[in-house]
């Protein structure tokens, strides 16, 4: 029982960062942009949030956790949006290939994160020496009373606020996409931009906004890993391949934010499953770590068998749109 609770807790903790990334990518892909720069953008968000908090705590005599938190949130979001903006200018305005641009952005963003991570570490006195414990405490603060409850408190209420924020964001995004006018317009842009254009929707504006805001949300995923998961420290390539897991999760969730919630927890569980299966040798552990990717491949293959219209990627995904192109 105790092990199971810890397992669920850990799975959720692993999953939430991925969930942010996936939500950002869902919003982006719904506009018809396949942004493979998401992993890089998560690094950009993570390091920007960390630096914001770091310089605030360094500059202030008695740092306030909430202020630190707000500063880091803002920095992470803004920096990630800049990443999204670079992608948007290149692919939307300059009509560059989406895959190529995305990969370049990932190279840039990962380098950006590690570069500044390394530089800040040096300022702080060495690798692993960055500490923004005050700000991190705000991220890691648990809900009083509720988190004290046995079992329920551990499973449901033992997380920092970003976890709940991710869940709220997923529900809100689902509502936005499927219940509001702008959401409808956005889906039309991703499915058939020529039609959306003819219906008087500003395709360029929607693509820009969805991509940039999507990037911002994904950036919070980076922040989550830095603050809640790592407790406010930086290690180079610290979140490894989780950015790609976020891209995988989008497919797994079939472009639906609500699916992404349980999908992220499942991915988190698969990611750490090897730790909880008794008697697993070191070598087998490595095999288990490949599970999330294998599962995604299986989902990808199965959806391609079934060809149900509603479960397919947005029809305009990856295809650039220009009105006067002839």
């Amino acid at each position: 029982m105790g092990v199971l609770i810890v397992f669920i807790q850990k799975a959720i903790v692993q999953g939430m960062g991925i969930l942010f990334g996936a939500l950002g990518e869902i919003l982006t892909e719904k506009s018809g942009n396949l942004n493979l720069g998401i992993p890089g953008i998560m690094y950009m968000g993570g390091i920007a949030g960390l630096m914001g908090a770091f310089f605030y705590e360094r500059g202030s005599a008695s740092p306030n956790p909430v202020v630190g938190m707000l500063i880091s949130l803002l920095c992470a979001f803004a920096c990630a949006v800049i990443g999204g903006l670079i992608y948007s200018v290149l692919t939307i305005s300059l009509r560059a290939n989406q895959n190529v641009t995305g990969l370049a952005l990932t190279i840039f963003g990962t380098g950006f994160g590690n570069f500044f991570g390394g530089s800040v570490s040096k300022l702080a006195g060495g690798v692993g020496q960055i500490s923004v414990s005050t700000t991190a405490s705000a991220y890691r603060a648990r809900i009083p009373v509720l988190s004290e409850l046995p079992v329920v408190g551990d499973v449901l209420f033992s997380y920092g606020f970003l976890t709940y924020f991710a869940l709220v964001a997923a529900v809100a995004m689902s509502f936005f996409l499927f219940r509001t006018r702008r959401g409808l317009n956005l889906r039309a842009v991703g499915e058939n931009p020529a039609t959306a254009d003819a219906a008087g929707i500003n395709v360029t504006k929607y693509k820009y906004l969805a991509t940039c805001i999507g990037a911002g949300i994904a950036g919070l995923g980076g922040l989550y890993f830095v603050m809640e998961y790592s407790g406010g420290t930086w290690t180079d390539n610290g979140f490894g391949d989780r950015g790609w897991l976020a891209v995988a999760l989008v497919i797994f969730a079939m472009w639906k934010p609500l699916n992404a919630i349980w999908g992220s927890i499942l991915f988190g569980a698969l990611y750490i499953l090897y730790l909880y299966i008794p008697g697993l040798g070191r070598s087998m552990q490595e095999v288990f770590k490949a599970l999330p990717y294998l599962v995604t491949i299986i989902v990808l293959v199965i959806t391609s068998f079934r060809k149900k219209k509603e479960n397919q990627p947005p029809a305009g995904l990856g295809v650039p749109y220009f009105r006067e192109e002839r």
Partner: protein
Amino acid sequence: MNKEPLFRMSRRESIGIGKQILIYVLALFLALVVCAGVIFLLVRMNPIDVYKAMFDGALGTKRRTWITIRDLLVLLCIAVGLAPAFKMRFWNIGAEGQILIGGLVSAALMINIADKIPNTVLLVLMLIGSAAGGLVWGLIPTFFKAKWKTNETLFTLMLNYVAMQIVTYCIVFWENPKGSNSVGIINQKTRAGWLPEVLGNDYFWNIVIVLVLTVFMFIYLKYSKQGYEVAVVGESERTARYAGISVKKVMLRTMSLSGAICGIAGFILVSGAGHTISTSTAGGRGFTAIIVAWLARFNTIAMVLISFGIVFMQKGAIQIASQYGLNENASDVLLGIILFFIIGAEFFIKYKIERNHRQEGK
């Protein structure tokens, strides 16, 4: 409502090679200016000095020059491997995995049978085995794409990480010394399975293999019947069927080739460069090569130039890093900036922008 658009753009009918080069040079120049700005902000150093240091880092000594050439060759090799896939409009994002599997086969042979057979035989086996490994890894997503149109971009991407886990799995068995979680330099004493030195040059065989592949690919794509089929399938599958081309067959054949060459890149990395295997053996080169292949538009000469540019940047940045106490990740940041500019420059090659002439009347 009464303002007309200031500019309008239209597709260029054609563009001279000189103008094309000019646009790229201009983009590169702008990129370097931006990079200089970034560098200045970070280290407060004269950017000219910094660029000098970069040059020094990439080509300053004979040894550095050779290392630059070595890395250039690997990148070029992967890009050459990706070219036919992209020409077929098959988004092989999985070079990273194909390289790893290729390298893994090489390492396995080096570790397990080096002492049982002559070195030449071993090397040939490694070359063939690596190619076969990359080929299989490339064929898996292709099979599904050919049969059920499964999205290959995402499939190949996922396979990269599966390949990485397979490598870490093997490292557990091969680690040396025990507990280090790494393989170390394989056969350091015997040099079995290392591409041998020729004319005092460690990289002779690297050059030979990559040059042969590059020339082969150039001819294959441009002058062979199979290359023509690749181009037709890439343009339109319906046209291919109309012309009597079996799309599935061409897809499987082309990706076999693509995967095999990426596998050979893995062989070169293990046997001709690092003499070890780890998850970072490919080190993102598979992704960088995608950009190289795409920007070069399957033009082999352009691939050489772009690969050189990128490797030059990386080596240069590492030099600045050590010289000015930055960390070496600066190279990725600078590389990213340069890539953005080059990717953006393509637009100005395809389109022209004109000012709208004023309309008559009011």
